[in-house]
């Protein structure tokens, strides 16, 4: 194995994957046919023609951002591709799985079903914004304590949903947690442990004001 393929703890999985894809493209495209522009991830695939970009001001995890985006950009794509906040996951991209759950003004919402332009002036919170520095949010900690995941792809959505669920205060039993978390699918089927994590975190957060 060459030096460049050695494990580097400073390289994230995403960067590694992007590098691997780029290497694959370079290897498979004949010289002279490689389009440098296409290797760069576009904010929104330009299917169906081009659109004029528009200025949008977003507040994400307390930080203001002045962006120029395609009006078609969803909040999800803008978080991931423009702001590089890749903790929010794209699952189905059609509002059927909950992986993209974020908070808009403190309420849980699906970032794949809203345009970024609609969220101007709103307080957006993502999974990157709920810990207190190096101290995990109690719900994050509960998911670790109860092993509330296998592959982890749905986990940021589950946690964002659970944090809001606890604040909403409508779920006191495990059955109610299951019903009011039903918008978050887990294909690994970690539901029993997710439920335990949510119930545990809810108990610990009761009256804590978080």
């Amino acid at each position: 194995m060459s030096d460049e393929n050695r494990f580097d703890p400073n390289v994230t999985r995403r960067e590694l994957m992007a590098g691997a894809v780029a290497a694959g493209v370079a290897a498979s495209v004949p010289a002279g046919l490689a389009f440098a522009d296409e290797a760069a991830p576009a904010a929104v695939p330009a299917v169906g023609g081009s659109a004029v970009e528009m200025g949008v001001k977003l507040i994400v995890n307390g930080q203001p951002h002045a962006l120029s985006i395609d009006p078609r950009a969803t909040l999800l794509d803008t978080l991931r591709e423009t702001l590089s906040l890749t903790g929010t996951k794209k699952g189905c991209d059609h509002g059927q799985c909950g992986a993209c759950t974020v908070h808009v003004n403190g309420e849980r919402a699906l970032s794949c079903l809203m345009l970024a332009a609609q969220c101007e002036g709103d307080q957006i919170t993502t999974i990157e914004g709920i810990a207190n520095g190096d101290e995990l949010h109690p719900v994050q900690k509960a998911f670790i304590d109860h092993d509330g995941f296998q592959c982890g792809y749905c986990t940021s959505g589950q946690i964002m949903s659970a944090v809001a669920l606890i604040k909403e205060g409508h779920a006191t039993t495990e059955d109610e947690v299951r019903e009011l978390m039903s918008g978050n699918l887990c294909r690994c089927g970690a539901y029993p442990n997710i439920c335990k994590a949510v119930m545990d975190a809810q108990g610990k957060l009761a009256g804590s004001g978080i």
Partner: protein
Amino acid sequence: MQPFTYEKATDQAAAARAVAAEKTAKYLAGGTTLVDLMKLYVETPTKLVDIKRLPMAEIRREADGSISIGAGVTNSAVAYHELVQKEYAVLSQAILAGASTQIRNVATVGGNLLQRTRCPYFRDGISNCNKRTPGSGCDMATGFNRTAAVLGTSDRCVATYPGDMAIALLSLDAVVHVATDQATRKIAIDDFFLLPGNTPEKETSLSHGEIITAVSLPRIDGGTKQGYVKVRDRASYEFALASAAAVLWMDGGTITQARISLGGVASKPWRAKETEAMLAGKKPDSALFREAAAASLKAATPMKYNAFKPELATRAIERVLTELTQAA
């Protein structure tokens, strides 16, 4: 998505003018239906007028005792509102039986009324579908039509109305308030939704550019029993195969009046008038419930894969009636 221009509405009249001026312009509220369908190229508006911030997000009691729900109120806000839970429980139950908290937090009352069918042949963007591409045919009628409607369908379209909220609104005799920049009008909820007939692409009696401003619920006189039963393929976060909303007025042990509506089985929110007529003035009785429920499904036109629906809807009605009249 097709490219579009996006503008934020500053006031209701300006929004109405902006949409009216462009035939392919649309209002954007929560976006939970529209953005999804735009990704699928089923909806291809050239202009979106964002009405989310217009001041239509209030629930208030009117002088005549009715309740007015602004079109921009989110589904969650309606479902958990004290007045709604107390006096219009069927509406709260129906909303909470649909979608997920994430979607209910964003979806609005006005937008919910305009949600489109989940017919897979409509959504796939490829099949023949008279609702999506008028005149192209209906592949659902001869295809895998397990989720298709059995009431109100036509040769052109067998798509099912998918929602829950409107089923409850129908049982509450709700009124839809709409406006242009010039005028306002009120539409009874049953007249708001259209049967597919020869024009399944036209689903409501709204004219282009008209904006839904509010939904009002008439005052309910006297104590009622209200309930919503929804049957679906999984326990939560799924559209109805059959659902039944019921509002019963009782005097002693007698049902004096019943309003019952069906979801999941018809082209539009469906009033079970035959059932209502058979219940009025009667005492609760399981044989009566069975017979009265079945009466509203007599006109059903099941197809190859949805022959179970008339029986399922009949049982949904029976169950909601039984639960309401057994409760202390």
